C-alpha cells in the first residue's frame, strides 16, 4: 500500500516524439476517446486548445474578450507574463515542478479580458500519444476583473500506451469579481502517472469552482491544489468525484486559505474504492476572522483489498470563524441493494445505480453543459461492473 514512487527522469522527453500536425491525423479510436470526454465540435464552446505530447496542434477562439495561445507564445508576447509565471506554484516545490521548470513542453495560456462573461466553455485537451514519455505542461489562466470563464480540461492518453507521466503546472488568477469554473474530466490509462501542481489566487468577490472527475483506471495521481482567497467575499469550492481501481494509488486533496474577511469555501469529495489506495485530503486554513469553511468526504468501500483514507484538516488563527468537517467511509447498504432488486434489478445493476447515485454530486454554479458532460462520463464508466 506504499506510495508509488515516480521518477521524472525515468521517462523520455515529450519533445523527442514524432507527433501529429493536426487532430485529423489522430486515429478514429483516439478521436472517439477525446469526443467522449467532451472534445466535440457539436458541443457549443468559445475556444479550444489541444496539445499532443509536447506540441499544441489546435488553438483557436470564437469570441471577443478571450485570449488563448500556447504558453510558449505567451512567454514571448504577453508583457506581464513575469507577474504570473511561477508566482503561485514554486518551481522548487518538488522534483516534478523542477522538471517542468527545466524542460517545458508547452501548455496553455488563457486570459479573459475585464468584464467579458463567456457563456459556453473553453475546451482544452492535453493528450499523451507516445509511449514512455513525460509531458510537462505549464498552464496559466487569468480571469480579469468582472470576467467569467468556464474551462473544461479533458486529459487522456493513447489507448494502448504502456507508461507515461503527466506533469501539469497550473497557475490561475481570478481578479476582483471574476469567476472561473474549472472542470477536469480525465481518462488516463492504467500505466499512467499524473502529478498536477496547481495554485490559485482569488481576489475580492471572485469565485473559483473546481470539479475533478476521474472515473477510469489510472496508475497514480498525486495532487493537492492550493487556493488562496485574498480578497473579501471571495469564495472557492472543490469537488472531486473519484473511482479507485485495484493497483491504483490516488492521493487527491485540496487546500484553501481564507485570508480575508467573509471568504468561504467548501471542499467535497466522493470516492468509490474497488481496490488500490485512495487518499482524500482536505485542508482549510482560516487566516482572517468571519470566514466559513466546510469539508466533506465520503467513501464507499466495495472491497476488502484496498485502503480508503480520509484526512480532513481545519486550522484556524482566529476565534470568529466557522469551520466544519464530516467524513464517512462504509460499504453499500444491503437494504438499498435489496430494495432495487425487488424492483427487478439484479445485484450488479442495483450496485451500479447506487454507486452512480453516490457520485452524482450536485455542483452549485456548474453550467448545465458541464453537468451533462459529467453525467455522461458517469454513464460511460459502467460503474459497479
Amino acid at each position, binding site marked *: 500500500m506504499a506510495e508509488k514512487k515516480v521518477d521524472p527522469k525515468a521517462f523520455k522527453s515529450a519533445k523527442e516524439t514524432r507527433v501529429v500536425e493536426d487532430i485529423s491525423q489522430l486515429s478514429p479510436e483516439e478521436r472517439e476517446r477525446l469526443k467522449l470526454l467532451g472534445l466535440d465540435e457539436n458541443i457549443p464552446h468559445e475556444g479550444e486548445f489541444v496539445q499532443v505530447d509536447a506540441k499544441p496542434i489546435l488553438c483557436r477562439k470564437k469570441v471577443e474578450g478571450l485570449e488563448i495561445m500556447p504558453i510558449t507564445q505567451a512567454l514571448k508576447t504577453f508583457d506581464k507574463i513575469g507577474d504570473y509565471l511561477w508566482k503561485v506554484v514554486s518551481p522548487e516545490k518538488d522534483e516534478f515542478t523542477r522538471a517542468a521548470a527545466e524542460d517545458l513542453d508547452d501548455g496553455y495560456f488563457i486570459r479573459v479580458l475585464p468584464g467579458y462573461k463567456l457563456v459556453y466553455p473553453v475546451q482544452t485537451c492535453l493528450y499523451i500519444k507516445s509511449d514512455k514519455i513525460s509531458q510537462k505542461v505549464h498552464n496559466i489562466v487569468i480571469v480579469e476583473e468582472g470576467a467569467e470563464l468556464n474551462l473544461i480540461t479533458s486529459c487522456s492518453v493513447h489507448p494502448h500506451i504502456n507508461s507515461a507521466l503527466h506533469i501539469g503546472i497550473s497557475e490561475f488568477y481570478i481578479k476582483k469579481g471574476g469567476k472561473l469554473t474549472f472542470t477536469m474530466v480525465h481518462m488516463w490509462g492504467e500505466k499512467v502517472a499524473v502529478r498536477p501542481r496547481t495554485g490559485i489566487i482569488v481576489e475580492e468577490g471572485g469565485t473559483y469552482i473546481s470539479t475533478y472527475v476521474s472515473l477510469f483506471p489510472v496508475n497514480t495521481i498525486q495532487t493537492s491544489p492550493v487556493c488562496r482567497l485574498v480578497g473579501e467575499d471571495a469564495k472557492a469550492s472543490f469537488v472531486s468525484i473519484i473511482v479507485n481501481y485495484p493497483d491504483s494509488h490516488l492521493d487527491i486533496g485540496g487546500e484553501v486559505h481564507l485570508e480575508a474577511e467573509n471568504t468561504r469555501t467548501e471542499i467535497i469529495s466522493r470516492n468509490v474504492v474497488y481496490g488500490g489506495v485512495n487518499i482524500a485530503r482536505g485542508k482549510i486554513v482560516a487566516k482572517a476572522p468571519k470566514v466559513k469553511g466546510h469539508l466533506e468526504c465520503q467513501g464507499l468501500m466495495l472491497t476488502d483489498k484496498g485502503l480508503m483514507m480520509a484526512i480532513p484538516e481545519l486550522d484556524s488563527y482566529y476565534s470568529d470563524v466557522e469551520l466544519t468537517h464530516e467524513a464517512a467511509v462504509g460499504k453499500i447498504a444491503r437494504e438499498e441493494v*435489496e430494495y432495487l*432488486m425487488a424492483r*427487478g434489478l439484479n445485484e450488479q445493476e442495483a450496485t451500479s445505480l447506487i454507486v452512480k447515485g453516490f457520485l452524482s454530486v450536485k455542483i452549485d454554479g456548474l453550467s448545465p453543459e458541464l453537468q451533462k458532460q459529467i453525467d455522461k462520463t458517469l454513464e460511460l464508466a459502467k460503474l459497479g461492473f
Partner: protein
Amino acid sequence: MNYLLEIKDLWVEIEGKEVLKGISLSIPVGETHIIFGRNGSGKTSLLMTIMGFPAYRVKHGHIIFKGEDITHLPPYERAKRGIGIMFQRPPTIKGVKLREILKLCAKENGVKIEELARTFQFSSFLDREVNKGFSGGELKKSELLQLLVQDPDLVLLDEPESGVDLENIHLIGEMIKKLLQKDVHRPRKKSGLIITHTGFILKYVTADLGYVIMNGEIYCKGNPLEIFEGIQKFGYEGCQQCLKRCEF
C-alpha cells in the same frame, strides 16, 4: 381454482431464529387477502420471504407462483415474473431520483409515468432523491407509484396505512384500489396480500379473505371484516382465547 400464489407448509428462519412455522395459504387470481397480526408475529417475514430476500432462509416448504416453484429464486427474478412489494420503511438511495427508479420499474411496459404521477398529485417528487425527507404519507405514495408503474400481478403491501395522516389516507386507498383493479368489475387479474397491525386499511380497500397470524403460525381464516371486528372488540388477546375455545 386458478391460484396465482400458493404457499405450502413454509418454515423460515432468520439468523437461526424460526419466524414462520408451517404457513400455508393460497391466493386465487383476482383476489385480495389480508393478514392481521401483532408486531413481531411474522407478518413482514412472510412478505419478505415471498419476495425472496436472502436473509429469510426457507428451511422447508414451497412458494408456487403462476404454477412455478419460485422458492429459491432471487428477488429480481420474482419481480420479473410479476411480484411487487410495498415496503413499510423504504431506504433512501443517495443521488438516485424517483424518476430514475420509475423508469427502471417501467422497463418497456408502456406505463405513462408523468400521467400517473399527475393523477396522484406526486409530480413534484419525480426529481427528488427517492425517499429522502419524505413524510409517512409521501413514502407510501412513492412506493405505490413505483408499483403502479411496475404493474405486478401480485401486490404485497406491508402496513400500507402506517404513518399516514388522514388527509392522505384516502388518496393512498385510491392508489391501492387502482393497483388491485378494485375499480374494475370482476373478473380481476390482479391479486394482493396485505398485512396490517391495525386493520384500518379495510375502511378503504376491500379484501376477500382474512387471516390472523401469531408466533409465525396462521390461527384463523375467514371473513376479513368479521375478523377485524373481533380484533377491534377483543384485541389479539381475544384471538388467543378464541383459539383455546376451538381447541376444546
